C-alpha cells in the first residue's frame, strides 16, 4: 500500500523541486541583498571575457622603445618547443649589432600554448598574450610570422603578467 502511494504521489519530484527552489531562493535573496549579480552564466559575446593574468594565449613578438624587434635569434625557443612550431631564420640588419630575425614563423595550428618558449627566452622578446579568439575558416590563417602577418609584433592590448610584477 505504502509503495503504491509512493508511486502515485510524486514525493521525489517534489523533493527535488524543493531543493532547487530553496537553492534558487537562497541565491536570489543573498544576491539581491548584497547587490551582486546572482547569475553565474557569463555573457561572453556581449561582455568581454575576463582571463587570469597568467593566461596563455597567442604568441607575440615584442618591440622595444625604439620600435626594434627585441628578438636576437638565439634559437632557444625553437629548440625547446615540444611541437616544433617556431622557425627562425637568422639575418643581419643595417645599424643593428645583434642578429635580426629575417623570418620568424609560427604555426599556430600545432601550438599547444605551453609557454616553454617564453620561459626559455633570455631577452624577454616574446610573450603569450591574452588573445583567445583565434578561430578561422582556413588553416592558412594560422600560419603567422614576420613575413606576411600583420600583428605578430604588436604587444597585446591586454596587460600581460610578468614575473617582475609579483
Amino acid at each position: 500500500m505504502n509503495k503504491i502511494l509512493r508511486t502515485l504521489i510524486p514525493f521525489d519530484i517534489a523533493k527535488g523541486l524543493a531543493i532547487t527552489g530553496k537553492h534558487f531562493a537562497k541565491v536570489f535573496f543573498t544576491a539581491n541583498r548584497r547587490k551582486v549579480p546572482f547569475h553565474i552564466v557569463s555573457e561572453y559575446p556581449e561582455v568581454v571575457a575576463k582571463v587570469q593574468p597568467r593566461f596563455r594565449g597567442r604568441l607575440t613578438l615584442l618591440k622595444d622603445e625604439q620600435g626594434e624587434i627585441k628578438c636576437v635569434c638565439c634559437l632557444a625557443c625553437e629548440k625547446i618547443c615540444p611541437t616544433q612550431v617556431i622557425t627562425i631564420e637568422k639575418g643581419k640588419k643595417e645599424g643593428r649589432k645583434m642578429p635580426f630575425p629575417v623570418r620568424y614563423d609560427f604555426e599556430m595550428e600545432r601550438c599547444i600554448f605551453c609557454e616553454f618558449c617564453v620561459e626559455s627566452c633570455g631577452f624577454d622578446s616574446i610573450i603569450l598574450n591574452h588573445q583567445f579568439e583565434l578561430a578561422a575558416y582556413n588553416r592558412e590563417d594560422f600560419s603567422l610570422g614576420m613575413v606576411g602577418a600583420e600583428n605578430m609584433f604588436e604587444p597585446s592590448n591586454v596587460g600581460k603578467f610578468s614575473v617582475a610584477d609579483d
Partner: protein
Amino acid sequence: MSEPVVPETPQVPEPEAPSGPYVYDYAASPQRQIVMPKTVPLPSLRTYQAEVKAAAEADEAKWVKMQADFETAKAKAEAEGKDAPKPPVRPVPRKDDNDMKTPWPQEAKDADLLRLQECLGAKVEEIFEQAGELTCQVAKESILEALQLCRQDAQLNYEMLADETATHYPAATGFAFSVVYHLTSISRRKRLRLRILVPEGFQPETACAVYPGANWMEREIYDMLGIRFANHPDMTRILCPEDWEGYPLRKDYPTVGLGQRDIAFREDRGGMLERIALQKAGQLGINLKQPKAD
C-alpha cells in the same frame, strides 16, 4: 645471440606536398628520423662496479703517466740546466653546486631480495638496489616460478602486479628486450621489480596464471614491442588495429609512421556524387576508397 637490428627503411613514396604555407614539412620532421641507440642502458650493479673499477684504473694510469712525464721532464730540465717544471697536481673531480645526487646501484641488503635469492638459488641472476627500489633479475625460463614465489610465500606476499612492461635494447648482444614486473605488497607496503632479459623470438611464460591483471599489460607489450607470451589466453593486439604492421615502440620504428599520410578526401556534400565507400581497414589502419574518375 641477436645482432643489433639494423632497420630497413621501407621505400615509401613521399606524400606530395600540397601548396600553401601551412603545410608541415613531414620529410624534414625530426620525428621521422630513426636514431638507433648505441649503448645498452640496462642498470646493473655488476656493470656499474666494472665501470667504476675501469674508471679508477684509467684515472690511476693517467696519474702514473703524468708522474712519469714529470720525471722525464724534470730529468730533461736538469740535464739542460733549466728550472724544474711544476710538480703535477692530482685533479680532483669538480663538485657541482646543485641539489642533484645521482642514485647509483648498491648492494642488496633488503630482506626480500635475500629471501628471493635464497629460495631461487642460481635462477637469480642479479639483485641490487637503486634509488630506493629493489630489483631482482631472474633467468628468463623461471619467471613464472619467481612470480609464484612472490605471490604465495608468506614472507614475500606481493599481492598485486602493479605494472608490466618491456624495453627494446637493439644494441645489446645476447638479448633484445628486458621485461620488467613491478609488484606491490599492499599489506607490507613494499615494491619489488622483477626483470628478465629475453632474446628476439623467445616466448616468456605469461603471468596471467598468478596475476590475472597481467592479461592486458602483456597484450600491450605484444602490440607495442612484439614479445609474444606463452600460454596467454588472448594474444592479440590491443591498441593498434588488428592488421597494423610493425611494433611501434621498437627503436627501429620511426615516430612518424611508415606511409600513413595518404588519406585522401573528396568533398561529397550532397551525396549526389558517388559515395566514398569505406573499405575494410587496410594495411595501416584506414583505407578510404577513391572515387572513380568520370
